[in-house]
């Protein structure tokens, strides 16, 4: 706990907002509007009922100085009219709320899918996200790039989701409500961010020890940026013969160790599916599912001992010697 607490406090209200009251996409916007109606109704009910309670508690308190303090007050056993009215009014409120809610459920869950929609498949793993774009031939992890959607010509992203192990949940509050990833079941949802930017989220269903560090980063790119990102991701892994010596050595270490049984680097012998795809690892801002910035120092330390940052992560410590560790880090840093 050696950080500067005041510095942390001041950063609370600056960047990194995951507030449900700052919607940036249609699903989040519809929920936001509905929530205003609901908050309005419940606040009104609260003010009326709590007001009456407060009044009763003050007005009808027993005062020893009263004239008839020792007598019991009139015993009222009930009143059919009053009881009927406070049954009927809540029923009407329920009907109103129910209809408003149904409208939003249908508009979100039954939204027709435009032809220009992008398809992304998400598979949840303990404790990372696998994203693949079937029609684009891209497989990546933890950082989801999707195009910004212009309301006049919508280009939403449709997510098809399942899990490879336990239950997870995809929650990026500024873009939409959450949807669970359940093994042996397919769930779907859609996103249409309307402003470019980075949207944060994280797994919202307890999935095991490192549930807390299964973070989400959704990059809403402008059409040009998105096209450029796709083009880079579609290229095979950087297998250049002109890589520097250390990177070449690192590639050899990588391809001769057990790394390849868990990870994929497209176009090489590494074809493992248990861990995240590393083909374009160096193009990502973070490692360890968004919980560490992607710098050579962090990468090196993580490979050496993942449990030091993320105890319980399923990647074992690789026990490489210092020389090999530096080499592998250098190699992975070339995988742009």
């Amino acid at each position, binding site marked *: *706990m050696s950080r500067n607490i005041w510095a942390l406090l001041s950063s609370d209200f600056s960047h990194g907002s995951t507030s449900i009251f700052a919607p940036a996409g249609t699903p989040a916007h519809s929920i936001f509007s*509905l929530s205003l109606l609901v908050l309005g109704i419940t606040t009104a009910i609260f003010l009326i*009922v709590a007001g009456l309670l407060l009044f009763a*508690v003050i007005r009808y308190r027993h005062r020893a100085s009263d004239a008839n303090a020792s007598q019991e007050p009139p*015993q009222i056993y009930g009143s059919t009219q009053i009881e009927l009215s406070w049954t009927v009014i809540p029923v009407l409120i329920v009907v109103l709320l129910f209809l408003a809610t149904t409208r939003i*459920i249908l508009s979100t869950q039954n939204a027709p899918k435009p032809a220009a929609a992008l398809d992304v498949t998400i598979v949840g793993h303990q404790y990372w996200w696998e994203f693949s774009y079937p029609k684009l031939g891209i497989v990546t992890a933890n950082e989801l790039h999707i195009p910004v959607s212009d309301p006049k010509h919508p280009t939403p992203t449709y997510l098809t989701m399942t899990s490879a192990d336990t239950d997870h949940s995809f929650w990026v509050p500024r873009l939409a409500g959450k949807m669970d990833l359940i093994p042996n079941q397919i769930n779907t949802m859609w996103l249409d961010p309307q402003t470019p930017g980075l949207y944060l989220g994280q797994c919202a269903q307890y999935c095991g*020890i*490192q549930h807390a560090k299964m973070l989400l980063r959704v990059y809403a790119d402008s059409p040009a940026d998105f096209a450029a990102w796709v083009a880079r991701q579609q290229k095979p892994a950087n297998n250049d013969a002109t890589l520097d010596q250390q990177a070449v050595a690192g590639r050899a270490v990588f391809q001769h160790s057990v790394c390849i049984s868990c990870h994929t680097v497209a176009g090489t012998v590494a074809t493992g599916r248990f861990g995240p795809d590393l083909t374009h690892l160096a193009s990502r801002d973070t490692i360890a599912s968004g919980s560490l910035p992607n710098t050579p120092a962090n990468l090196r330390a993580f490979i050496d001992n993942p449990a030091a940052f993320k105890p319980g992560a399923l990647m074992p410590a690789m026990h490489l010697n210092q020389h090999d560790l530096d080499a592998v880090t250098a190699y992975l840093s070339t995988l742009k």
Partner: protein
Amino acid sequence: MATHTSAPAPSTTYTPPRRLVLDVLHDWVTTVDHKKLGLMYIGYALIFLVIAGFQALLMRVQLSIPNNTFVSPQTFNSLFTMHGTTMVFFVGMPILFGFGNYLVPLMIGARDMAFPRLNAFSFWISAFGGFLLYFSYFGASGLYGAGNAPDVGWFAYAPLTARVFSPGHSTDYWTLAILLSGIGSIGTALNIVATTLCMRCPGMKLSRMPLLVWLYLVTSSLVFVTISPLTAAQIMLMLDRYAGSHFFDTQAGGSAVLWMHFFWIFGHPEVYILVLPAFAFANEIIPVFSRKAIFGYPAMVAASVGIGFISLSVWAHHMFTVGLGPGANTFFVLATMVISVPTGIKLFNWLATLWGGKIHFTASMMFAIGFLFQFLIAGLTGIMLSVAPFDWQLGSSYFVVAHFHYVLVGAILFMIFSAFYYWYPKMSGRMLSERLGKWHFWIFLIGFHLTFDFMHVPGLLGMPRRIYTYEADRGWMIWNMIVSSGAVFQAAGTLLFVYNMVWSYFKGPIAGPDPWDAWTLEWSTPSPPPEYNFAVIPTVDSRRPLWDIKHPDDPDSRYE
């Protein structure tokens, strides 16, 4: 109004010799008396309240600042699992069954429960369940070696609980402990139903039973169809883990969602099982300290029965994000909203009971008034969550944690405190200190609101539940710090309460049979009642037999 007698003059009656400690212990261990069993349930629950409260304190320290390392991830995950499991099964259920055990026979003019030995068996098997759960700290093994308490969350979703994801025995301790506690709960519920239906004193038709007895009847009936689904699901889980079956084995075509359905078919009515006794206490305490009969007795009965029935149809509002489809989601939205109608009726009836009364602000009543305001808020956040799209954002977030703690602590625990201040004189023969009681109330109230009002905010800002730490850039820190600060006040208030109970047992003023000038049958016995309860089984003529005696010119029987 209070009619406690002063300490009796030295008498010439026979004082029995002091009993041996071993004899006293033997008496308590082998007792089948509903009053002693009730007190054992309550004492047992208070011990676990302190333990589970301590677990909460540890969690709040860990979450005060981002990226904290006060406890490890494994420890934190065990803490929230044990905190939830303990509070529901080894604090909530025992304390409420304890009060029910003590009060129901007295209130209906009976000498004991219908099945006294079953009563004792139910207590001891539940107690063993609690012991088993905590033995896991020593005996269990998990992913990380020996001494692992369960860490799968109190609702233990599949397939996280499968052998492959939760090796070792920590999950099994969870399953078995709750299974045993469930058997005890069914036994006690059976006893309450049989006692209520078969042992009422002459003249006490069902329509003349105290509302507390009605609510315990509804609660116990709910237990039969609520605990059993959990028992069945746990048998299935054990078969999956040890016999190789595939109930929740997603690799073999099994369904993770099926566990959720079974668990929540238990889990939702379970929270009504916890809250209906709190309503029961309110129905007795609020009228007495308002000096008025409860407003709308028939509607209160109907609303309680209605809540019991409807509560069986709302379970999948815990599963709005699971992908059930718009049809199912819509149905559960409606059912959940509908249950707010009878619940609201009860709240309005309490308001109408206060209205026109002469309210006495004893410690008991202050907690009851706190309950009224807080239950109103808890119900309203519940309505918010019933709006499925809103739940798509707020489900599994700290908003939900705040909502259910508002009900569990703000409504149920407050009413339990109220019940303690009200019935402690009957159970022990002494009054609790009103002065300490008021300190307890205010300190606890401040702590409660600091913690649980502000806890809604991180949920609205996107903080999910069950995370052992969080990123510094989310803006959650200040709210977590405020939430954590409230925990200290609640701990202080609770310790003050425990001190009050111990001190008052030895030094409190003698209570006499009827310190509150109340109207139900338990106040016609000495405090504490003799083992046989009533020398002569009473005959009653109205809902408030003691009111009739005290007001022979204006008895209730004239108006019913």
